[in-house]
C-alpha cells in the first residue's frame, strides 16, 4: 500500500552516519531485559538452545546478509567447534570457558582454510564449494576416533566457570550463555556498522565498483568469512556445553540448511531477523514435537509462505512498516 514512500529505505539506512541509531539501543536494551526476565517464565534449556541458534544464524547472516556470500556449509564450523569443545571439556578436562575458546579457535582456523579456497568462486559455485567442505568435515566427524561415530561425544561435563561457578545448574549456565550470545551479537553489530562493514555492503551490492575503488575485495571476503565461521563456532561450542553432547546432527548438511532457513524467515540482512528466525524454528521443533511428522511439514509450509508473502523475512517486513532499519 505504501510502497511508493518506502522503496528506498534501505539505501537511506546505509547512508546513516557511523553511530548507533537510538531505536537499536532501545531494542538491545529491551532484548537484554527480556533475556534476564525470560527464564522465570520460559524453560531455561529451551531458551539456551534458542540463544545458541540465534547466534549461529546471526553469524551466517553476517556473511549472507552483509557480505552477500551464501555459505551452504556453516554446519562445518558449528559442528567442529562443538566437537572440539566437548572433547576439550570431557577428555582434556578443561574449564568451560577454555573449552569454548578451544572450539571457537578450531572453527576460526577451519574458516580460514575453507574460506581461503571458497572465496575464489562466486554465487552457486561458492555455495557448492562450502557444501563440499562441510561434507568432508562430516565424514571426518564420522570416522575420527575421538568423535564417537554416530553416538557422538556424550555426557560432557559442564564444569565450573573459571573454576568457581558451578554450571550444573541450568539457571547459572543460562546467564553465562546470555552473556556469550549477547556479546556475540554486539560484536556482529559492531562489525556491520564499522567502516569494514560499509565496505562489505559495497562489495555485496556492486563488487566491480568496489574493486575499481581500490578495495582488495578478496581480503574483505576472507575476513568476513573467518569472522562468521568463528562466531558460528562460538555458538556450536556453547551448545555442546548446554546439551552436554556433540553429535553428527551438528555437522550434517541439514544443519546448514536449517540455519539458512532461520536467517531467511527472520529476515536476511537485518540485525534482529536471525534472532526471530531462530526463535520461530526452534520453538516449532520444540513445542510441536508432539505433532510428529507435522513439524517438518509445518516448517516447509512456513518457509513457502514466507518466501511468497514476505520475502524480506519477518523482521524485514516489520522494518518496512516502521520505515526504520532493524
Amino acid at each position, binding site marked *: 500500500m505504501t510502497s511508493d514512500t518506502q522503496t528506498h529505505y534501505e539505501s537511506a539506512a546505509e547512508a546513516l552516519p557511523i553511530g548507533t541509531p537510538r531505536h537499536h539501543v532501545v531494542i538491545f536494551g*529491551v*532484548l537484554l531485559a527480556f533475556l534476564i526476565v525470560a527464564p522465570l517464565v520460559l524453560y531455561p*534449556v529451551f531458551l539456551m*538452545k534458542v540463544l545458541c541458534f540465534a547466534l549461529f544464524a546471526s553469524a551466517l547472516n553476517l556473511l549472507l546478509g552483509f557480505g552477500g556470500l551464501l555459505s551452504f556449509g556453516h554446519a562445518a564450523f558449528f559442528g567442529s567447534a562443538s566437537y572440539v569443545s566437548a572433547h576439550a571439556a570431557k577428555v582434556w578436562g578443561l574449564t568451560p570457558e577454555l573449552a569454548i575458546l578451544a572450539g571457537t579457535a578450531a572453527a576460526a582456523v577451519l574458516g580460514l582454510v575453507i574460506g581461503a579456497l571458497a572465496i575464489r568462486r562466486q554465487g552457486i559455485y561458492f555455495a557448492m564449494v562450502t557444501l563440499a567442505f562441510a561434507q568432508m568435515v562430516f565424514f571426518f566427524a564420522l*570416522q575420527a576416533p575421538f568423535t564417537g561415530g554416530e553416538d557422538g561425544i556424550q555426557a560432557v561435563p559442564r564444569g565450573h566457570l573459571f573454576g568457581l561457578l558451578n554450571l550444573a545448574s541450568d539457571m547459572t549456565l543460562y546467564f553465562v550463555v546470555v552473556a556469550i550470545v549477547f556479546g556475540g551479537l554486539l560484536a556482529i553489530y559492531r562489525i556491520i556498522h564499522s567502516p569494514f562493514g560499509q565496505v562489505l555492503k559495497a562489495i555485496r551490492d556492486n563488487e566491480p565498483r568496489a574493486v575499481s575503488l581500490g578495495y582488495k575485495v578478496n581480503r574483505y571476503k576472507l575476513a568476513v568469512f573467518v569472522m562468521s565461521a568463528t562466531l558460528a563456532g562460538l555458538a556450536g561450542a556453547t551448545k555442546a556445553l548446554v546439551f552436554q553432547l556433540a553429535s553428527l546432527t551438528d555437522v550434517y548438511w541439514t544443519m546448514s540448511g536449517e540455519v539458512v532457513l532461520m536467517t531467511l524467515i527472520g529476515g536476511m540482512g537485518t540485525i534482529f531477523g536471525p534472532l526471530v528466525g531462530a526463535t520461530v524454528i526452534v520453538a516449532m521443533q520444540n513445542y510441536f514435537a508432539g*505433532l510428529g511428522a507435522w513439524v*517438518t511439514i509445518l516448517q516447509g509450509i512456513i518457509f513457502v509462505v514466507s518466501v511468497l508473502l514476505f520475502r524480506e523475512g519477518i523482521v524485514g517486513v516489520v522494518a518496512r512498516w516502521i520505515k526504520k532499519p532493524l
Partner: protein
Amino acid sequence: MKLKTLALAALATTLMAGSAMAQTAIKIGVLNDRSGTYADLSGEGSVVAARMAVEDFGAADKGIDVEIVSADHQNKPDVASNIARQWYDQDGVDVIVDVPTSSAALAVNEINREKGKIFLNSGAASTDLTGTACAPGTIHWTYDTYALANGTGKAMVDAGYKDWFFLTADYAFGHSLEENTTKVVTESGGTVVGSVRHPFPGTDFSSFLLQAQSSGADVIGLANAGGDTVNSIKQASEFGITQSGQALAGLLIFITDVHALGLETAQGLVLTEAFYWDLNDDTRAWSERFSAEMGGSKPTMVHAGVYSSVLHYLNAVEATGGKDTEALMAWMKENPSEDPVMGTGTVRADGRHMHDMYLFQVKTPAESTGPWDYYKLLATIPAEEAFRPLEEGGCPLVE
C-alpha cells in the same frame, strides 16, 4: 518489542498450563522418531503399545491415573535431550520409554542419570546402555547389537554356513557390529573370508556385492542399518545373490523393513528378533488388537518391548505403592517380568532385560499365506546365550 514479550509470555503460560500437577498420577513419555526412518518401527505404534499396556494393567481400576505423552526426537540427540529435560523439569514426566537411535538414547540416558528418573529403552541398539554408559535408572528392554550379531552369527554357523563375508558400513557402529559378529563366528567354528567397507550412507553397493559374491563365502553379513541395509538387500536381489545359493544375514533389520522390501526381494534373509506376531496364540491375539488400532500393520519387536516394559513398570508402581525410583528399580530387578507378548524375562543388575531371542528366515513368496506372513522360525535362542555376559559389559554398577 514489548508486544513480542507479552506474546511470548502468553504463549509460555498456555503451554505450561498443559502440564499436569497431580501427585499420585503416573506420566509416561514416549519419545521416539515420528517422522523419519524409524517412524514405522517405533513412532505412533509405541504410543499404542504403551496405551495397551495401561489398559491391560487395568490402571483405572487400581486407582492409578496414567497419562501418556509423546514427542518426536527426529533422531537428533540434542532434540531428544531437550525434550527429556523439559519433560522431567516442567511437565512432570516420571518415565521415558522407547527412544530409538543410539545417540539420542545415550543422551536421554545421561539426562536420566542426572535427574534420577527411570528410562525404559526399547528402540535403541547400542550395547553401551548396559555397558560403560549404564545408569541406575535405565533398563534396556528389547534387543541390542550384541544379541542380534550373536544370535544370527552363531545360529548360521551351526546351520552350516561356515564362511562369512562382511559388507560393513564404514563408521563406528558398522565396525563394532562386524567385530562382534566375527568373534561369534570364529568361536562357533566358522571363518571370515573377507570384508569390505562401504561409505555411510551408501547408495550404490554393486561393486561391494560383486566382491562378496566372488569371495565364494556361504553367507554375506550385512553389518549396516536402516536405508543401507534395505538398499544392499535390494541390490543383492538384483544380482541374484540369494538365488545363487549365498545367504544374506541381516544384523540389524526389523519386520517393517521386510514389509517395505517385499518377500520377492527379501526372501531367504536370516535375522534375529525378540518378537514376531505369529509366535503363539497370545502374540497373535495381542497383535490383532494392535493392528486394529494401527491400520492393519503388525507390531515390531520395539512395540512389543514398549508394551512389556510399561507393564512391568506399572506392576512395580502397584507393588511399591509409589514413584520412588530406587524402590521401583529394585522391584523391577528382583521380580521377573511376565506378559503375553514377550513371555517371561528378568532384569539384570546392569539394566539388561533378559529374554529369549528368535532366529527367523524370511519366507519365499510361495511359502507366505498372506499379508505380514513373513518369517519362519529357525531357532529359539535362550536368554543366557542371547545377550552379552554380565561381566563383559564393563558396567560400573556391576561389582
